């Protein structure tokens, strides 16, 4: 099938470029670095506070959440405070300490931070995979063949996604391996979350998998956006700068926006954090997982629609 061969081509080009190996190297370095830092700052069982101490700590924390709940001026702050109290109470009742020894799960949890880094890399690849062909002039040789422009663009988008999945898989699997060797499984507990004051227990590995995937949603969306910008403007720089900026400040900005208007719920970043639906409940009252997924799909379709439209219509005059 032609599309598969085109993807094979894109993959070959990607892995014959130095920049790809630089990215992989930095990611590996990141994984090693967090391991080293955590290794020298481990919480041993002897460091853990006594039952009495942590229960008292939780009671104090609950008082402050209570206050937040009463003074809260928006939905999310209030529901967050309610849920945290529920979790704390659940811990006190069921004797589940919030403190644990450093173990493979705490290490993997830290490495979710690396998804931001993966985001930057995937955005760079997504921005350059089309623009680079225009800059180098190779787009002409690519287009004057029987593959349609749609197939060529599709192969490039799919390759970018595959690259993202590869980086994610490397991070997840390597973190698990390094984590289990260095920190082991001792002292691990369940994962607790609460929605509407209702507490749920989940297995750690399951929840981590969920977190990794949920954190990747914004990467996916921003990659599609970067892909669109670079296809329309044929400029890697604009696409990378804009998308990376949004990757870092997008959700914060949306969070602030959500304080003032419910319309924020239609913005991209109000919906990228799907993890909320499993942990603390929605950002804005009335939002559901289905709603967010639908909004994300609409954004994704728009980004891809404009990419394909411009790529197909444009005259190539380089």
């Amino acid at each position, binding site marked *: 099938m032609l599309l598969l061969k085109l993807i094979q081509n894109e993959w070959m080009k990607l892995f*014959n470029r130095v920049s790809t190996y630089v990215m992989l190297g930095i990611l590996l370095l990141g994984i090693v670095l967090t391991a080293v830092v955590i290794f020298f700052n481990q919480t041993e069982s002897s460091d853990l506070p006594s039952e009495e101490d942590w229960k008292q700590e939780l009671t104090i924390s609950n008082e402050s959440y209570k206050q937040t709940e009463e003074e809260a001026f928006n939905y999310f702050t209030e529901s967050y405070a309610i849920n945290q109290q529920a979790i704390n109470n659940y811990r006190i009742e069921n004797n589940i300490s919030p403190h644990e020894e450093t173990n493979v799960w705490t290490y993997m949890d830290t490495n979710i931070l690396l998804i931001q880094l993966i985001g930057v890399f995937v955005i760079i690849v997504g921005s350059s995979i089309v623009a680079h062909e225009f800059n180098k002039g190779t787009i002409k040789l690519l287009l004057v*063949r029987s593959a349609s422009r749609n197939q060529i663009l599709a192969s490039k988008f799919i390759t970018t996604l595959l690259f993202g999945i590869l980086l994610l898989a490397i991070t997840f699997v390597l973190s698990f391996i390094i984590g289990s060797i260095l920190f082991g499984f001792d002292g691990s507990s369940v994962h607790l979350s609460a929605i509407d004051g209702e507490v749920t227990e989940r297995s750690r590995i399951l929840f981590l998998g969920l977190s990794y995937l949920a954190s990747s949603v914004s990467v996916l969306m921003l990659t599609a956006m970067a892909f669109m910008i670079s296809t329309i403007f044929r400029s890697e720089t604009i696409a990378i700068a804009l998308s990376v900026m949004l990757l870092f400040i997008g959700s914060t900005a949306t969070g602030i926006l959500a304080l003032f208007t419910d319309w924020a719920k239609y913005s991209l970043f109000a919906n990228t954090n799907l993890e909320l639906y499993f942990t603390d409940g929605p950002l804005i009252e009335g939002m559901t997982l289905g709603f967010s997924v639908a909004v994300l799909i609409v954004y994704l379709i728009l980004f891809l629609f404009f990419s394909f439209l411009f790529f197909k219509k444009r005259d190539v005059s380089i």
Partner: protein
Amino acid sequence: MSEPILSLRKVNKKIGKNHIIKDLSFDVYPGEVFGFLGPNGAGKTTTIRMIVGLTNITSGEIIVNGNSISKNYKKAIENIGAIVENPELYPYLTARKNLIHFGRMSNNVTKEDIQHRLELVNLDHVKDEKVARFSLGMKQRLGIAQAMLHNPKILILDEPTNGLDPAGIRQMRDYLRKVAKEEGIAILVSSHVLSEMELMCDRFAIIQKGELVQVEDVSSEEQADIANRHIFEVNDVEKAKDILLSEYPDIAIEIHDNLLQVDATKEQIGSFITYLTSKGIILYQVIREKQTLEERFLQATNGEVS
């Protein structure tokens, strides 16, 4: 001649208010090397971009092996192998990987085909080196190899001799002539340097400011019905001139450096020779002045080059 493999019919291209190509029509036939000539900015690259579908045709039609490039792109483009402007290959891939890449985009291109093409363009010994290290001539040759991978019926090369040294140009010329003859494919080469095209092309079209100035055979001056300049060396130029003018009063005739210059067709020259001899003039020699492509080009474009 057989059916044309490429046919342009009243092709126009407008970009904004600029009318870049005006009613351009010409045909290219299998087995010939067709020169597409014109000064810089005449619209050669724009025309080639339209032929390969990189840019839309404003009006008119381009037919490749019976398929319209705008209506039946896939069918039409399968017949074309092309390099538009510079041979831009992937600098970070080796020569072989570049060919593997483009080979994957067509059906039935095997490892052996790739090896064969590398050998044909004399790049076998550097096939595993990165293209970034190649000279322009090597890139040009690799470009031709990639364009020929899928055995197209027409090869389109935009200024392939640009930046090549005389030896490189000669090598390219020999290779293209060989390919046209042996594989029977048509080759369209554009150029603004006419002297390089003379020995390469069978026929040529000249465009200027987007308009076709003329299409002809490189050897057209040998055709019987075209008047060419002939130089007569005789024992008495004045007498010879008078004799000719008395019998043929309409002909263009001049005396230059004690030689007679006559513009006439092959047939007319024949009768002149017989007539002069019969009148007692002694003819030492008659030479047909060969006009270079460049001179004909200047004539056709009224001396305006670029």
